[in-house]
């Protein structure tokens, strides 16, 4: 892993040369999708969608999870071959009847999926040329030519610090995303489809990404940008297309549009506010973590978290902000006993030192954690929705090891109602739910353990706007009941919208500890990047007395 702050230093310069110059030609639109419709069984997923894209234009495609964005892009990239959907696609003035992704890539349509399609063990070069290798006689890899080409490509993208011979797993998510784009450009992409490209990137990495897209636009490459993060859409898109329930809702030029208007179009109603901040009382100290240090499992000399101490109070929402790689996940994992490498430190609950060396012990002490990676660490794919929810508390409904399935189902049903979890039956496979509802199931699993301290690591990642608001509401319900919440989040506006206090981490250390009042994104970001010492007391003069006392109590 390359330290995230290295990435922050990158400045995207001008592209010296770009190989795939799109000629301005006779057709008005690079791509026209007309009346696209798609049916699965009896269910209509898309209904008469029209989209037009000019060369060098960036279209923002917005819609809630399940609105049909991915389906539409699968139609465009021929994951669903020509003939399996209705309508027509005109590409560079000609009808496009592609039967496979190979056909669309040959035409110049390249899709970059949310989950990156890179092989971690292979080098940067090998990943860039995957499937399009330059070869010598007899099928041998022409490494010399590929290295040269790859380095040239990365220079164009202003990422000179990358060693193209190194396995890609040594680089972080931000670099990997850029390599994916390089890979696409290497295929002579004229239209780049980016599906949630920023979901695992830090703010500075996102800035690099957006800059790159701007330059591609200038070179005539068109983009379809799919994102839940509307600020990004606003920053780079020329036109915004909103779809809902498979229907085309609106196509509006960006300059004529406001963010809340897009949200309203997406959800079909005016959202009162995204962050329903509610008053709650902050009580006594619950959890203190002292001198937490986490060592890198590959390189024991390196500290991922360096002697960090913090505390959280009853009914308090503590936000932990920072760039990816700052050590936030490692810190909360270590507190919960889930950190994989070696770690040091002491955790106190209500003043008494407690053993939190494994998740099992932590949960018994009243700690709970909703992990960052829902697919790999949150859900158990082969169990159904209900079984996932009760996994941590099976003993509560069992006697002599036998599960009382009636009692279990009762609890599951009441939880489903309480959290507004949308599932037709608790016996459905968990994988059939949307991301937001899966997250609610994971949350419910942890809530059933009745925690005093709940750690949420990126609780709204990959969750649509509607479910996000419900999760925020749930968080406020919990703090009102006296639960202490520790929320790690890469979305700054989320941290600022929800948290009572914000801890900013950078390079494994705490770089700032702010009361969330008059706090701005710029201040948090500045602290995270470490530009200048941040004097906490200086900008906290307006803090309420009770919160000021919390401040003094900080270790």
């Amino acid at each position, binding site marked *: 892993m390359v330290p995230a702050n290295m990435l922050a230093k990158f400045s995207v310069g001008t592209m010296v040369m770009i190989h795939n110059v799109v000629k301005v030609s006779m057709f008005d639109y690079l791509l026209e999708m007309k009346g696209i419709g798609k049916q699965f069984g009896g269910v209509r997923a898309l209904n008469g969608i029209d989209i037009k894209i000019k060369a060098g234009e960036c279209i923002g495609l917005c819609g809630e999870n*399940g609105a049909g964005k991915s389906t539409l892009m699968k139609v465009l990239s021929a994951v669903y071959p020509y003939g399996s959907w209705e309508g027509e696609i005109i590409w560079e003035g000609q009808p496009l009847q592609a039967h496979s992704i190979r056909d669309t890539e040959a035409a110049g349509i390249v899709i970059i999926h949310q989950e990156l399609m890179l092989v971690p063990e292979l080098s940067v070069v090998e990943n860039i040329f995957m499937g399009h290798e330059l070869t010598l006689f007899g099928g041998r890899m022409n490494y010399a030519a590929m290295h040269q080409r790859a380095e040239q490509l990365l220079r164009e993208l202003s990422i000179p610090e990358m060693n193209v011979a190194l396995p890609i797993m040594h680089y972080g998510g931000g670099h990997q995303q850029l390599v994916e784009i390089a890979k696409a450009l290497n295929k002579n992409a004229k239209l780049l489809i980016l599906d949630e490209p920023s979901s695992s990137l830090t703010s500075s990495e996102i800035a690099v990404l957006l800059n790159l897209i701007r330059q591609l636009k200038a070179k005539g490459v068109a983009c379809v940008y799919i994102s839940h993060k509307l600020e990004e859409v606003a920053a780079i898109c020329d036109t915004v297309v909103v779809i809902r*329930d498979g229907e085309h809702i609106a196509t509006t030029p960006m300059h004529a549009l406001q963010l809340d208007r897009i949200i309203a179009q997406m959800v079909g109603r005016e959202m009162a506010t995204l962050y329903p901040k509610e008053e709650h009382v902050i009580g006594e100290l619950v959890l203190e973590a002292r001198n937490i240090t986490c060592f890198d499992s590959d390189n024991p000399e390196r500290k991922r978290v360096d002697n960090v101490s913090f505390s959280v109070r009853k009914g308090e929402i503590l936000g932990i902000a920072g760039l990816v790689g700052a050590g936030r996940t490692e810190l909360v994992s270590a507190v919960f006993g889930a950190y994989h490498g070696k770690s040091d430190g002491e955790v106190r609950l209500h003043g008494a030192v407690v053993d939190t060396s494994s998740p099992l012990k932590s949960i018994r002490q009243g700690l709970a954690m909703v992990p960052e990676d829902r697919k790999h660490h949150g859900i158990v794919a082969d169990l159904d929705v209900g079984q996932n929810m009760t996994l941590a508390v099976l003993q509560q409904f069992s006697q002599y090891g036998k599960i009382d399935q*009636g009692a279990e189902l009762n609890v599951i049903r009441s939880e489903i109602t309480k959290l507004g979890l949308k599932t037709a039956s608790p016996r459905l496979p968990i994988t059939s739910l949307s991301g937001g509802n899966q997250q609610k199931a994971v949350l419910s699993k942890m809530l059933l353990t009745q925690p005093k301290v709940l750690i949420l690591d990126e609780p709204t990642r990959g969750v649509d706007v509607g479910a996000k608001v419900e999760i925020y509401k749930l968080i406020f319900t919990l703090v009102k009941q006296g639960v202490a919440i520790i929320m790690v989040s890469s979305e700054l506006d989320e941290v600022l919208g929800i948290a009572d206090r914000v801890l900013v981490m950078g390079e494994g250390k705490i770089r700032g500890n702010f009361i969330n009042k008059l706090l701005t994104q710029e201040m948090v970001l500045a602290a995270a990047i470490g530009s200048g010492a941040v004097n906490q007391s200086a900008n906290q003069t307006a803090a309420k007395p009770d919160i000021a006392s919390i401040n003094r109590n900080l270790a």
Partner: protein
Amino acid sequence: MITTTKMTTMVSGTSLKHLFSQYKMLALMLSIALIWIFFNWQTDGGFLTPRNLSNLLRQMSVTGILACGMALVIIGGEIDLSVGSLLGLLGGIAAVLNVSYPLPLALNLAVVLGCGLLFGLFNGFLTAYLRIPSFIVGLGGMLAYRGMLLGVTGGITIAPVSSGLVYLGQGYLPVQIGMLLGMVLMGLSVFLLWKKRSSNTHYGLPVAPLWRDGLRIVMIGGILFAFIRTLNDYEGIPLPVLLLLVLLGIFSYITTQTVFGRRIYAVGSNMEATRLSGVNVQSVKLWIFGLMGLMCALAGVVNTGRLAAGSPSAGTISELDAIAACFIGGTSMRGGSGTVHGALIGALVMASLDNGMSMLDVDTYWQMIVKGGILTLAVWVDVMTRSGRR
């Protein structure tokens, strides 16, 4: 609006999948019926006689006992290749204790079962706590346990074992007790069904209509009656088959009703998520292997009894039969899904092929080719029907 469309997709999706999984069990039953009809036709009615069916079930009992344990191991996301050698070793120990040091049978059994549990726990410890891949632990065990067996027996067949031990492998339940057992089982299923109805009523859950439960009771009764009647027409229920039935009951109970069972599925499906949910995943794995070792001990004793001797080659490649039975019975190779009764039906398929082809005097090499082909075919069908999911 959005949620209703989503839900319809989900419901139709699952009912289809549900149908598939039900259909899969049905397909297995159907293929067994076809195999039986084919062999019966080829042997001019020699296959479907009480005597042969009794033999067939006895033949499958060793593989079946192993398959019970192996199903848990595979559902838990692991594999155990050492069970064939371990079965041989434990059967050998039972024979040696019986012949060279005439221990009372009960003590002998206790020692062998204890050894089985310990060996299993040792395998589990290496896999779960020392994080050695179970494939390697199994491979090592396969060699080491076979070596121990050669050492214990001195490389020669240990015989003759006492009549008590032989009875365990070859004996039959007296006809009257068989009938009595049938009635007890019948009463038990009526009782369990009634208990489920009353518990559902208690928790306000939907209760199946009375006629359907009635029909179910009639069906269970019919199958039980036909089963016991057929076996009683020969000599009675063979003891190994009785043991297998008991194990089927116990393991089905473990996998569907207990906390431990639920955790086996969770660990096999996503170990990390399960660990983060506060489950001691290492101990779950440890005990899965412990149970497997116990099953090896039972299978070893039955095998020794069946052969009336402890043989240094006992149980060779029977681990592969057990694994094949699990896969034919629909256990997922990734772990996380599968059933014990499926694995036993898989074992029945394998045993039927063995038995039928032997009756037809098919060459051994053809038998192996056919069994290999059937295993591959069954897993292919399984992969095809699952492909919609992944």
